[in-house]
């Protein structure tokens, strides 16, 4: 019975039990979560994983049983992804995101944020003065569907009516807020993704967004409603426009990195830039949620100009303070 003395066969017979145990634990995790394991099993995982890895090395060097090597490769790979996978809980991740990652990403992208802001500002100013000079420009900047009767042809009274909610009918606010949030988030993510095409579409989108804003403001300014329109816009606009500018910044970062990767290799630079801007984008979605609530509910409920400006001022202070104020470095354990 020479084959009984095959070393690879004895090798397998001695370790098989541990492999099967690891396989059972992995199957358990696959079905539920890591919480499906008891403390004892959780502690056993790394040990079993290292045993499987060492078995794999030995098997590759000494065994010619192809199915055994394949099995160990697959087993080790699955265990590797668990052992070196993300282990922090959802609460820790969310906490870390708000406490550190989001502000850090916003600070890391300050150049792009300035560029994005400048593009928006240029759009606002250009459209504002063009529309003041010749109201026909309004049609060029704002599509009819969005204008909704607020064009230069409308009377001062009609324009004033769009700024205030006179009906007292407060139903449908949550729908409005939800619509604004989902729509704006979609557009912001789109603006971010477009940045991949070497910044150009994102830059155009930022400038165009500014143009629409400028054209609106000009229309109201012509009728002497600049102050009221400012309050109507700023209560949510500070948050929303900041979010859009940040989304643009994130898009500009990936496009710029694609074109000029700097010291790193292009894939590495892209990966780094992509992760940082993605963190910022997650923050943008949070901001747009706040903006949606402010616009959909806050603006309809608050009808006083000064109260609207007050809320706007608070957001204007809070967002930059949260994102850009330097904070104490976390003590390194």
């Amino acid at each position: 019975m020479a084959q009984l003395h095959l070393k690879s066969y004895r090798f397998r017979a001695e370790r098989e039990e541990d492999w099967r145990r690891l396989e059972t634990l992995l199957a358990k995790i696959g079905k539920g979560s890591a919480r499906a394991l008891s403390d004892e099993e959780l502690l056993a995982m790394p040990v079993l994983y290292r045993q499987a890895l060492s078995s794999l090395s030995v098997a590759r060097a000494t065994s010619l049983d192809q199915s055994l090597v394949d099995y160990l490769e697959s087993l080790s790979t699955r265990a590797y992804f668990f052992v070196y996978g993300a282990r922090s809980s959802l609460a820790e991740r969310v906490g870390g995101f708000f406490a550190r990652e989001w502000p850090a990403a916003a600070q890391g992208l300050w150049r792009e944020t300035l560029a994005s802001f400048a593009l928006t500002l240029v759009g606002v100013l250009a459209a504002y003065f063009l529309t003041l000079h010749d109201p026909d420009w309004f049609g060029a900047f704002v599509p009819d569907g969005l204008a909704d009767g607020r064009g230069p042809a409308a009377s001062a009274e009609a324009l004033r009516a769009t700024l205030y909610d006179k009906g007292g009918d407060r139903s449908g606010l949550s729908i409005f807020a939800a619509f604004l949030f989902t729509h704006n988030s979609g557009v912001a993510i789109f603006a971010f993704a477009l940045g991949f095409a070497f910044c150009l579409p994102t830059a155009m989108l930022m400038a165009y967004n500014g143009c629409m804003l400028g054209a609106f403001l000009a229309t109201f300014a012509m009728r002497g409603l600049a102050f009221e329109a400012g309050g109507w816009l700023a209560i949510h606009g500070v948050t929303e426009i900041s979010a859009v500018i940040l989304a643009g910044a994130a898009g500009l970062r990936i496009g710029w990195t694609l074109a000029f990767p700097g010291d790193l290799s292009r894939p590495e630079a892209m990966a780094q830039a992509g992760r940082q801007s993605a963190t910022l984008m997650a923050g943008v979605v949070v901001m747009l949620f706040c903006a949606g609530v402010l616009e959909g509910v806050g603006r309809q409920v608050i009808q006083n100009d000064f109260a609207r400006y007050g809320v706007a001022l608070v957001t204007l202070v809070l967002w930059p303070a949260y994102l850009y104020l330097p904070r104490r470095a976390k003590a390194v354990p």
Partner: protein
Amino acid sequence: MIAGRKRKAKAAAAAAAAAAAAAGGAPASEDRQARSLVTPEGVDLKLRLGEAGERATALLIDLAIMVGVLVGFSLLTLLAFLGSKGKGGEVIATIWMLAFFVLRNLYFILFELTPGAATPGKRAMGLRVAARNGGRLTADAIFARNAMREIELYLPMGFLIANNGQVGAWISLAGLVWCGVFLLFPLFNRDRLRVGDLVAGTWVVKTPTRKLVPDLVQSSRPSHGRFAFTQAHLDAYGVKELHVLEDVLRRYETKTIALVAARIRQKIGWKAAPDESDGDFLAAYYAALRGRLESRLLLGKRRKDKHDKG
């Protein structure tokens, strides 16, 4: 006659090798897809990249699930709306809108954040997302790779749906080119990265779950006593042939077994006893050959294939 049989046997062996390659067994045809991932312990796990077809299938499965859930959820909200006689309309509409948002933007993200790092479609195809540098797959990477779906997937889809003759032919053409560039992006790079993978520093790899099958040496043990192979018999083949033989034995298709047994007997000059079965012969030869090659392996000599005389 002999030449004909030889050719047949060769064809069978080739077919077996091809089948083994298709099943992921033989390395030759999959080397292009193999990537090394060295663990901190210093062992190369030899990952295999997901193939374009598998990933497309996974995407289609995911899209089908999303559409199914959307239709089901819409019907449910419609029933709830009718049931509430229109009173709960506002709440229901809000919930529907948020659910649609979650489904469209978070479906991929939430599933890839789970320990399996795979959507149901990927899981069904045996795929998962992994960080390209071998480190942890972080949440921001998952967010980045899926935010890019906006231009890779949703823009072309929206373009196809919305394009009903409102735009000119040139704009349509430009749109098609744009979609094509992003859709086919994975086919034009070595690592099958889509734009999202490039931006996030991830790739999609296979995680086949293999069962531990019984060792052939063990399952065929009882009848081995009667076969006594000499060293000359065992020096006819190398590791590559051993693996093909292993695959043939695992499949155990009677016709192939007979062909391969005849081919080996002829090559090593083995006289078959009258009551000797082809299967027993192959199993015994496999065990003996593996023993021989493994003992040489221990001395540091890996005989690649039958042409390797070292």
